């Protein structure tokens, strides 16, 4: 049974003569078997969105239902690869169609013929439940891929293979469930991208995602299992921030979705991540990374799907007990894809032409983040970091506004900081993180019990500085009293010496927690001592002549993470400087 095309409008096609499609069903369209999805069923017609270019389709061409929802094949071989929005490997597409992407390419997300060495752990005769691990595959030097019983299958192991070399086509085990039905288990399983993979329970958030970026880790942290948004106009460094996180954050696995972004950027990420060595594993970063590329000129419907494809992969690896971080760059392009499709469906628009369901779609996406207890009792997490590209850099637009409701860390990129080439251009006055309280115990145990208090002081100085800058803009800095001038100086020290971080500098690109904490401590100590000098009526001009200010400014470049203890020596220098000035004054 199949239908025929009765209308084409951009990526949306209409079928009138076949009524048995199921919502969300995957279909094959036309002679080239383009991949489509049923998105609306009306009384007299069914609408289908097509994930490939529809030019050249004709009325009367057939549409074949598949009886299955839009699903992807999950299994070993996903890590280290680059895919399109519906998980077709771009390298396989290149093999088939050359440098330009043709349509109707049918390729599996994983290599079904590749033999993997499978270490079987299941034992014949045992009862196991959905999610249980029946075997392991070394996907590469870094990642152990666990072969899990697909969701919905529980029962007795009727037969199981011995450890050995198998491909995704080989049956590894047969399970008989309580109704007597037998299920064949292979290396691969399918999952519908729009449905979250089930878990046993959510756990409370309790550890940070360590990024090595000072303005994030110290000032606006994100937790493992949390969600953050990075909004910013063009040129403010969204992609740079996302790339830094993909490179340096301490997640086990990174899923990077280039959603409607530049082709060169994806090429750059692929080259760079393949060349960079992960300091923790000593292996190329690409061995823990999955790239999904739907560049801005690829079909818009696949852009809409790419976000779901990415999060499904993240959940799949989470189910194995990994901490996964997902970067979506940019969620605005995804929202615009929704808008474009909604327009083609002639739905009534809500705010700025976006469909009314934008909010609920955003909510259900960000809700797929979390720190969880998996079906197989392991613990894993999915952290989501979504870039937002607000129109005209205006944060009051619907995508930014609605995203804000579902994330607890908000890293606002600032145009003026970017113009002055202050990167990361994260504005410390408009950004926030609600994870500080969740992480308080962790900081106390692993960094220092003073961590939060120091951070608060740091933020207080920056706030005071901002208020003073308002006055300076009107009357200049010369007329301020010395204690306020000191705030400006320390503020500058924090901005340039701490918040600003050079992604291209070998030492500066990553700062561990120890160094971050000591840097803050030193700056605050310098402030305390200088303030006590100012309080003793010693002119600020004398204090500022001291070289110590310049030295602390360049701690970030001069002291490596491993030698962070050396920062403590500055305290001695600060004490010397304090005594010296006091003596001179006397």
């Amino acid at each position: 049974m199949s239908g025929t095309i009765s209308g084409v409008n951009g990526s949306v096609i209409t079928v009138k003569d076949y009524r048995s499609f199921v919502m969300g069903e995957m279909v094959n369209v036309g002679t080239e078997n383009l991949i489509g999805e049923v998105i609306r069923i009306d009384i007299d017609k069914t609408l289908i969105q097509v994930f490939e270019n529809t030019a050249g389709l004709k009325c009367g061409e057939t549409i074949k239902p598949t009886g299955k929802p839009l699903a992807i094949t999950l299994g070993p071989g996903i890590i280290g690869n680059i895919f399109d929005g519906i998980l077709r490997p771009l390298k396989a597409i290149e093999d088939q169609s050359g440098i330009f992407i043709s349509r109707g390419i049918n390729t599996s997300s994983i290599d079904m013929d590749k033999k993997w060495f499978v270490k079987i752990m299941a034992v014949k005769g045992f009862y196991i439940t959905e999610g249980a691990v029946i075997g392991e595959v070394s996907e590469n030097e870094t990642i152990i891929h666990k072969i899990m019983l697909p969701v919905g299958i529980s029962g007795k192991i009727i037969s199981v293979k011995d450890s050995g070399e198998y491909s995704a086509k080989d049956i590894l085990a047969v399970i008989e469930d309580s109704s007597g039905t037998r299920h064949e288990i292979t290396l691969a399983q399918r999952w519908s991208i729009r449905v979250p993979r089930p878990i046993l329970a959510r756990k409370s958030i309790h550890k940070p995602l360590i990024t090595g970026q000072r303005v994030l880790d110290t000032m606006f942290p994100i937790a493992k299992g949390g969600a953050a948004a990075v909004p910013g106009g063009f040129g403010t460094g969204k992609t740079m921030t996302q790339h830094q996180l993909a490179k340096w954050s301490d997640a086990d696995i990174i899923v990077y979705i280039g959603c409607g972004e530049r082709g060169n950027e994806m090429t750059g990420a692929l080259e760079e991540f393949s060349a960079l060595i992960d300091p923790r594993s000593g292996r190329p970063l690409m061995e823990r990374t999955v790239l999904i590329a739907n560049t801005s000129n690829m079909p818009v419907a696949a852009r809409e799907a790419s976000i779901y494809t990415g999060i499904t992969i993240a959940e799949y690896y989470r189910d194995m007990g990994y901490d996964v971080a997902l970067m979506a760059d940019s969620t605005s392009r995804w929202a615009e894809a929704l808008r474009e499709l909604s327009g083609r469906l002639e739905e009534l628009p809500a705010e700025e032409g976006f469909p009314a369901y934008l909010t609920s779609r955003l909510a259900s996406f960000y809700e797929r983040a979390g720190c969880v207890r998996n079906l197989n009792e392991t613990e894993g997490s999915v952290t989501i970091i979504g870039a937002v590209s607000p129109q005209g850099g205006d944060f009051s637009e619907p995508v930014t506004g609605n995203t804000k409701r579902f994330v607890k860390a908000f890293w606002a990129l600032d145009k003026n900081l970017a113009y002055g080439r202050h990167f990361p251009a994260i504005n410390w006055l408009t950004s926030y993180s609600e994870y500080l309280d969740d992480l308080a115990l962790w900081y106390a145990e692993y960094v220092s019990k003073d961590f939060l208090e120091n951070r608060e002081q740091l933020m207080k100085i920056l706030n005071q500085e901002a208020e003073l800058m308002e006055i300076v803009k009107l009357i200049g800095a010369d007329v301020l009293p010395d204690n306020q001038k000191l705030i400006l100086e320390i503020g500058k020290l924090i901005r340039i010496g701490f918040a600003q971080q050079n992604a291209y500098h070998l030492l500066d690109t990553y700062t561990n927690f120890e160094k971050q904490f000591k840097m803050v401590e030193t700056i605050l100590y310098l402030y305390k001592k200088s303030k006590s000098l100012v309080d003793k009526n010693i002119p600020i001009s004398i204090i500022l002549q001291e070289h110590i200010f310049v030295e602390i400014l360049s701690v970030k470049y001069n002291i490596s993470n491993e030698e962070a203890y050396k920062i403590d020596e500055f305290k001695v220098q600060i004490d010397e400087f304090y005594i010296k000035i006091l003596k001179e004054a006397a």
Partner: protein
Amino acid sequence: MAVEYLGLAEINGSFVILEGVEGVAFEEAVTFKVGDKIKQGQVVMIYADRAVIQVFEGTEEFSLDNTNTKFLGKPMEIRLSSELLGRVFDGIGRPIDGLPPVFAERVADINGKPINPVSRVYPRDFIQTGISAIDGLTTLIRGQKLPIFTGNGLPNDKLAAQIVNQASLGEGRSEKFVIVFAAMGIKHDAAEFFKGTFEENGVMDKVVIFLNLAGDPVMERIITPKAALTVSEYLAYEKNMHVLTILTDMTAYAEALREISSAKGEIPGRKGYPGYLYSELASIYERAGIVKEGGGSHTLLPILTMPNDDITHPIPDLTGYITEGQIVLDRSLHLKGIYPPISILPSLSRLMKDGVGEGYTRGDHPDLAYQLFSSYARVNDIRALATVIGEEELSEIDKKYMKFGRAFEERFLNQGVFENRQITETLKLGWEILRELPESELDRVSDEHLRKYYS
């Protein structure tokens, strides 16, 4: 196979509707015969036996029964050949230079196909334009798409022409660019200016020109950049040439798109532009790049006019999200008599980070650029203060910044239309200007470079 139909069911603005058609494909090319005139069109929507067709040269003289419609059974195509160099075409690729049609080596769908990201080569080769503001601060890289954001009355054409004339791969390199020039909705004299410069430089035989001028049919305008870019891709990726494509003015293109969208009765997005403006612009800009096979490259330099100088307007805004940076022209600099009036703070080249520095230009280049950006950003704050309290009342250090700001604009930014500065000259100039500031203010440059170039 071509099928012909006599008569139309409906005429609506520049759209016609045919009924009772069979086997019509979405986006299929169409020709109309009205009296002795041949016009071209494209199918934009099909529904059962109805086809909605957009007519490129307008529907004047069309009636319901005098029109003969021929479906060509293929998408809009353009003939490709190396003989395209030196030729002039109209907005949809028909020769208007009095010479016969091009002998085609092959024909290609003008819509092109997306380049596979794994087939791309990340662009890293520095292009020297001889313009300090660009070479020093917003470096152009081979294979980059870098638009010029301009305003009405600003010298964007002069700047584009200067880039075309001077662009080279640095000192001692002779590889020249082939130029594809597409004009959309620009005035006749602007087109003449470009043609004049190409002729003066004796490069006419290295240029392919597509002209859709302000008075030409609006509908053709949406085809012009696609036709031109198909030629660029062919020359770059198949004939291995280094191609520099200039598209001007992208604003006229976007407006044409809006006109068509509203005629189709689509739900408008921001400022009446269709929701798919981003995708449409992307399908144009993303055609730049370098691919693995062959040694060519495709660099794209679109020019777009910011309506009311507003950089947050949807056209520059969406463009900035797709392109790899932007060069922004500024009216106040222009009024001060600075040429080129490039406002460096909002200008950016995203690929610069990988194409400058040690092994590309010179080791101190990135630091120097960051320092100039950061110091000049400070100048703007101080100027704002000076307008309130007067320049006399500024602190000593602020006065130095004011002096630095003036030197930067008058000596670094400002240069002659025919002045071709080598990159070393640009860098030297940058350091000279930084000397207006005391060493303690230079927090972006390493001690090593300070010693070597500052003191």
